[in-house]
């Protein structure tokens, strides 16, 4: 992360015109993968990500947990999703992301309600534009709910970071590439408990507090978009 490029203009706005604490637009839709037990599609800025969930008996038998479910999230990128063609298959970065997403989902799924089961969460990043891990987690958690898996709360993801010495909400691609720090975080809105948190770059303790408070403020709005996506499905279904 290098700060050679000017990321905040003289009038205090960001290169894409957003205020420091302004999110990019978010749209979520459920029921997009017909064969899956649950699914959701998110457009978060220019990110396009689809998540599908299968709930099944864990296999082979000796891999089952007799008292709770196993969760496996797999974050995968399409060949055309990034600037340079991405080779198919997992790499070290996607494996780490799969792990932290899995652990965040495990923290909210009521695992004891699904003994012997495996909850497979497949995430496909069709177009990537900064913040894919938290956008993936946000949509995956809707897909898990869409599959009828019992959850204590929907997980909401968000990022903040530092650009040109200022703390900003929901990093853009340029801010991610040329900014000074990136802090992805995910929480359970009801209890405000943190289930995913990473940081890389350089931030003081005060800056960290500023970043988290920006994100805490943004979370209710994202949570509402998640809930509306799940609701609208039920509304339609009732209307039929």
């Amino acid at each position, binding site marked *: 992360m290098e700060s050679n490029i000017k990321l905040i203009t003289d009038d205090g706005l960001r290169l894409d015109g957003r205020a420091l604490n302004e999110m990019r637009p978010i749209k979520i839709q459920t029921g*997009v*993968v017909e*064969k899956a037990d649950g699914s959701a599609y998110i457009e978060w800025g220019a990110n396009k990500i689809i998540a599908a969930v299968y709930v099944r008996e864990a296999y082979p038998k000796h891999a089952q947990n007799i008292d709770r479910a196993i969760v496996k999230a*797999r974050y995968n990128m399409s*060949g*055309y999703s990034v600037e340079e*063609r991405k080779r198919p298959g997992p790499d070290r970065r996607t494996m780490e992301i799969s792990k932290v997403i899995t652990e965040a989902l495990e923290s909210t799924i009521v695992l004891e309600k699904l003994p012997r089961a495996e909850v497979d969460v497949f995430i496909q990043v069709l177009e990537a534009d900064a913040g894919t891990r938290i956008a993936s987690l946000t949509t995956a958690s809707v897909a898990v709910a869409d599959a009828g898996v019992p959850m204590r709360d929907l997980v909401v993801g968000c990022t903040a970071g530092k650009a040109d010495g200022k703390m900003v909400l929901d990093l853009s691609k340029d801010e991610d590439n040329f900014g000074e720090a990136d802090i992805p975080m995910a929480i359970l809105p009801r209890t405000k408990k943190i289930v995913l948190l990473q940081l890389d770059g350089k931030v003081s303790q005060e800056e960290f507090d500023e970043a988290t408070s920006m994100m805490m403020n943004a979370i209710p709005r994202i949570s509402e978009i998640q809930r509306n996506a799940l609701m609208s499905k039920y509304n339609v279904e009732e209307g039929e």
Partner: protein
Amino acid sequence: MPMDSNAVISEIRKNFMLESIKNGKRLDGRPLDEYREIKITENFIPKSAGSAMVELGNTKVVAGLKIEQGEPFADTPDKGVILLNIELLPMAFPTFESGPPSEQAIEYSRVVDRGIRESKMIDTSKLVIESGKNVWMIFVDIDVLNYDGNIIDACTLAAVTALKNAVIPGSKLGEKDFKLPVNATPVAVTMWKLGDELICDASLEEEQVSTGRITVTMSEDNNIHAMQKGEIGEFSLEEIQKAIKTSSNIGNKLREKYFR
């Protein structure tokens, strides 16, 4: 064709399906050679060099292109390179697995690729930057997001649409960006044998009941550029000849409707 023991079709439904098809009508009401609703979303991935989402009923695929510079193959120093790959994503069907491509995914990729390659849709000799050293490489990645039958036709539609929209980033060499030179519009038409009939655009449950699959890819020159008999099963020569005629007719219709 994916197998899923939980989703195996009951004997009753299977017989009902075959009986209905014998009478010229499918369970969803379609005539034997009619496609489900086709929805093509062009430029679905704005950042790619060309892209399309294609929906055939519930079957959903996305094709996206990346165009990079690279070395040509040693035996074709004066040609650009097209590399086409279909991923049957594990999200698309309960029994699809993560990992390297299955035999099924590879067969599908190669059939779609042959139709495009042999119809000479793309004049790869126009993709040379420096003979023998540097050419444009076109990566055509196709993801199957939901599997409800007839992947070959859906992927061919998506790849052809993405290629038709594709822009070569000549500006990276200090020249102008330019449209990929396109000379033909191949259309793949796949037919399945159910009882003694051939049907087009099978849904997944029709695929599971079928006894043989045949794909015929033709272009506007009315020549056959690719054929592939797939899956266990057998065809008479007459059935093959009929399949060729059907492909010719449907190919013309689809070309008229989606590629004018």
